[in-house]
């Protein structure tokens, strides 16, 4: 077992010698790296700069003095860990995040230290070179921190499920232990065995984390699906509302018409009655029907959307050649046509040429849907999704993504082309009978 309590580090040095100053400078550098590292885990915005400066300066003082005064490994290790932990209390976060951050900050730092230590031992450098290598070690650590800063995608201050606790904390702890075993020349066989067992556990944990990632993706997908469904439902709801409104108006009118016709019959004025009935007939005919393809679902979706487009100031031209029954679910058609129209209407808002062209054709069992409209300004294309020129960036991305996922249910494809200020979408859906379509209703 190595003698943590009497082991001396290699860095005993006179404080004011050149080597000593280098040592102090290196320590300062290390503190700076710790400062950056802390920034990855915590939100700095709520803490005053002065407080931070003071805290880190104290850390620096304590660290340097313990190093120089005691120079016993276990003491320096513990002071370091403890200081970092105390620093985490500067920031507002969960306790679990503080513990995890402390471990994840300390473990790599120790690894680098031991790395440098082994390096120095093997090359048998003296004081000056030793400190130079120390600085290189700190640079390596800074590099690691910078990479982590860049790689970080989420907020690290979040709830950790209880079963994730142990594996997460275990890795830095195991790393510390393994680094010591590898680095210290006084280890016995037993500790090597323990270290190897730790390594084995780390591999298991890696597998577990990979699996957890998979679960995360599944949940993300489900969430997206729910969002889409919600949007589709609210659209259906609007449609229902609109038609119910029409029904109410018709019913109201009918009552009045009946009363009038009743009285006309009562007084026996046939001529007047005929005129009246002619007027009613004319009224029935004037419902704004834009398309009448025989396919009820498509007709209702299109009529609604075309009306909406016209109300927003666009001019809509359609050419529809489809049979009265398609093997595409109305729900998916709603998502596709609805979103395409929303997109086109949105695009037209900022331009003078407000023409929208919409086509649907069935050819050789393939359903083609085309939308064309003018748009203004640069489209933000991020990761293949389109962000709106308006505020709501995330929302617009979802629109075309919903279309894409509806399209993929039918093994189809969506082709988007933007040229000369024209947004051109062509969609292919296979209108296969008995396709393996799982209904998502």
């Amino acid at each position, binding site marked *: 077992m190595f003698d943590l309590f009497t082991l001396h580090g290699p860095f005993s040095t006179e404080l004011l010698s050149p080597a000593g100053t280098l040592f102090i400078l290196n320590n300062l550098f290390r503190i700076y790296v710790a400062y950056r590292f802390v920034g990855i885990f915590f939100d700095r915005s709520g803490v005053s700069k002065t407080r931070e400066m003071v805290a880190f300066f104290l850390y620096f003082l304590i660290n340097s003095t313990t190093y120089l005064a005691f120079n016993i490994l276990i003491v320096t290790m513990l002071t370091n860990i403890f200081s970092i932990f105390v620093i985490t209390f500067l920031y507002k976060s969960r306790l679990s995040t503080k513990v995890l951050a402390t471990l994840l900050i300390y473990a790599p730092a120790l690894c680098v230290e031991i790395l440098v230590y082994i390096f120095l031992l093997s090359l048998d450098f003296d004081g000056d070179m030793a400190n130079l290598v120390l600085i290189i070690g700190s640079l390596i650590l800074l590099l690691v921190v910078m990479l982590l800063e860049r790689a970080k995608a989420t907020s690290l201050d979040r709830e950790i499920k209880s079963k994730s606790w142990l594996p997460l904390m275990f890795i830095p702890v195991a790393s510390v232990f393994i680094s010591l075993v590898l680095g210290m020349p006084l280890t016995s066989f037993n500790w090597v065995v323990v270290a190897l067992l730790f390594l084995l556990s780390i591999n298991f944990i890696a597998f577990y984390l990979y699996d957890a990632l998979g679960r995360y993706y599944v949940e993300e997908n489900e969430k997206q699906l729910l969002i889409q469904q919600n949007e589709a439902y609210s659209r259906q709801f609007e449609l229902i509302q609109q038609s119910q409104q029409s029904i109410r108006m018709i019913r109201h009118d009918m009552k009045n018409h009946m009363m009038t016709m009743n009285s006309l019959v009562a007084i026996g004025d046939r001529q007047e009655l005929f005129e009246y009935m002619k007027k009613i007939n004319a009224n029935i005919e004037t419902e704004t029907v834009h*398309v*009448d*393809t*025989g*396919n009820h679902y498509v007709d209702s979706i299109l009529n609604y959307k075309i009306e909406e487009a016209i109300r927003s100031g666009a001019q809509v031209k359609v*050419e529809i*050649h*489809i*049979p*009265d*029954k398609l093997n595409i679910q109305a729900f998916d058609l709603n998502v596709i046509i609805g979103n395409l129209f929303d997109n086109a209407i949105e695009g037209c808002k900022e331009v003078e040429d407000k*023409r*929208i*062209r919409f*086509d649907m*054709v*069935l*050819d*050789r*069992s*393939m359903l*083609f849907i*085309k939308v*064309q*409209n*003018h748009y203004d300004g640069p489209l933000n294309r991020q990761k293949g999704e389109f962000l709106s020129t308006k505020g709501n960036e995330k929302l617009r991305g979802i629109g075309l993504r919903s279309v894409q996922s509806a399209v993929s249910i*039918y*093994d*189809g*494809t969506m*082709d988007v*082309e933007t040229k000369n200020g*024209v947004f*051109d979408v*062509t969609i*292919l859906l*296979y209108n*296969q009978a008995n*396709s393996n379509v799982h209904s998502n209703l």
Partner: protein
Amino acid sequence: MFRIAVCDDEPTIVADMERMLTRFKEKHKLDLEIVAFLSGEELCKTLESGEAFHLLYLDVCMKLMDGIEASRKIREEYMDESLQIVYVSSSKSHTMQMFENRPMNFLPKPVAEEALERTLLKALSLWERNQSDFEFQIGKRQYRVKINEIMYFESDNKKILIHTIVNTLEFYGKLSLVEKQLGGNHFVWIHKSFLVNYMYIREAMYDEIILSTGLRLPITQTFRKGVRDFMVQRRKGDLHV
């Protein structure tokens, strides 16, 4: 010479369309011949006698043999895929049957001049694109086959089989070179061994296609995306804002 047939049991409509088509002929200086038919039977008898047309305007509802029956005969009995059919119908809705005979387009009655003109021009451009031949070599001799007679190419070992509507020809070659030689967007590569003429596809599904003869050819996994993109690109040229 581009031959157009107009078939409708209402003489006034036929006369109207003939007039409009003649106007386009003069306007675009086209080499057109327009022939009128007053019934589906008359049309079919003429076709059976060996006369061929490039474009047919067909009334859907006629007494006795209606447009759907006539077009079915054209596609299934006469196996003619190069005759472009445009259904002319007073109803805006279409039945599934109409699509099964692979029309090029639909025209609502009363026929608008602009719409008629568009279908004519589209048919002409499709015809022009299909006019070329495919050239290949057997030994030292050069041969050629009309592209619109080739249903599909099949590769068998080192040989390429050209399946036309009348026979099957053979020559030594590689399918990838054939595809490059053909260019354009007439033939779609659905399988390592099959290169199919779009004209002769009756139904396209994500994992297989059915030819007009009823033959089913599979679309292998790796080719599916390419097939989808091909179909979309073909469609894209059609309409503009």
